[in-house]
């Protein structure tokens, strides 16, 4: 049986993890490489790394950090933020990202999805979508949620899917950073229009919020401020959900990897 996926998000700016409320008022939350490894050790099912500024100078820092994270990381890593071209995607994949997330660039140039999927396979291309309700319709926004993209959510998901998106990272702009629960109505709607997996993002504040998403059949959730502020750990969240009967992958503390060919697997 497929397990629920619980994915910590590292929002990175100038090489440091930050957390903002509704894409604004960011605060420092530490070194992304050590934080990412800690999440993984604690049972994260994947990691998402989003560079929220990604200037040219930051790109060099970013690929160096991603290389360091990859050397120690044993779970999948998605990297995004400021990805504009195929060569941006290539640099991230080459330095150890398993998937690349594209957002504004995909809206400006949807052919980028196709080109990426053709070159590396759909599984490498995550299309990140920021949306919120505007006059009764879910509208897509670009540039960190600031600019209306002029596209309705369902239409964009369908187009991106047909162009080769392997997965969606769907953020509710209204719910993001508020810790009042995921935007379940938006998620339900997105689920009804695409066959691709959807990572629910924006709004997790309690374990109950995750349970609510799982109860509605959503299997994959992104966590950010909840973890950065140290309110809960990945391990606590997963143990609690497992106790409540949700399908959770638990990291067995007795299992030790065979590092350097020395160890032994004990079950």
């Amino acid at each position, binding site marked *: 049986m497929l397990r629920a996926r619980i994915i910590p998000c590292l929002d990175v700016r100038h090489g440091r993890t930050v957390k903002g409320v509704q894409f604004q008022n960011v605060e420092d939350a530490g070194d992304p490489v050590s934080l990412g490894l800690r999440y993984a050790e604690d049972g994260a*099912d994947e990691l998402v790394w989003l560079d929220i500024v990604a200037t040219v100078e930051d790109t060099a820092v970013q690929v160096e950090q991603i290389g360091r994270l990859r*050397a120690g990381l*044993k779970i999948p890593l998605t990297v995004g933020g400021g990805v504009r071209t195929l060569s941006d995607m290539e640099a991230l994949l080459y330095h150890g*990202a*398993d998937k690349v997330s594209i957002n504004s660039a995909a809206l400006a140039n949807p052919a980028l999805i196709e080109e990426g999927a*053709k070159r590396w396979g*759909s599984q490498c291309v995550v299309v990140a979508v920021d949306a919120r309700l505007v006059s009764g319709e879910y509208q897509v926004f670009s540039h960190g949620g600031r600019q209306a993209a002029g596209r309705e959510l369902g239409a964009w998901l369908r187009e991106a899917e047909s162009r080769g998106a392997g997965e969606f990272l769907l953020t509710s702009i209204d719910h993001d950073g508020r810790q009042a629960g995921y935007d379940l109505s938006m998620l339900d709607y997105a689920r009804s229009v695409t066959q691709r997996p959807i990572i629910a993002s924006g709004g997790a504040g309690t374990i109950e919020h995750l349970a609510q998403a799982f109860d509605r059949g959503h299997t994959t959730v992104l966590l950010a401020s909840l973890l950065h502020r140290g309110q809960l750990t990945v391990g606590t969240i997963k143990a609690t959900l497992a106790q409540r009967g949700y399908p959770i992958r638990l990291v067995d503390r007795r299992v030790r990897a065979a590092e350097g060919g020395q160890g032994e697997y004990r079950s």
Partner: protein
Amino acid sequence: MKVAVVPLHAGNLGSLTASLRRLGHTVNIWETGSDVSGTDWVVFPGVGAMREVTADLDRRNLLEPLTRMRQDGQRFLGICLGMQLWFDEAEEGGRGLGWVSGSVPRLTAPVLPHIGWNDWQATGSTPAWLKRYEGECFYFVHSYRVAPRDARHIAGLTTYGEVFPSIVIDRGFIGTQFHPELSGEVGQALLHDLLQHVS
């Protein structure tokens, strides 16, 4: 051990090579036929685009030496797409290497690709060393599955929408539909054990 990795187009090998290096192995990347040398294992990684893979390997002068190595009993590991390409036909009707008899149909499930952590069950063909990992979760990402003609080649089964083979073993060849290199500590341990065994 010496482990050769054969890239299937310009994909990301970072997770796989990092995983093999953590286990203390020497990794060589075989881009073309001139890179081929003696090795303990040849690994077909799980990333890349499947189309025209046979023609691509041929263009890179790898098809002939790899085919000869297969006949000479070389040990091979195929991960995800790297396992699928061993079969007669590749996904979407492309031609596979034909080293294992069978096809590669699309997975039947409401949400595709199958992305995430899933467990597996042993079969009558599962060797003892592998059985210790039965029921553990590994990381999957795929839309196609393999369908070996000979059921004895199926060493593990997983359920997502339908039951499909997640581990295939055939004379010196072992293939996993999941990615051990992305499967945490358990994946790392399985990869370690796998490379110790002549399957």
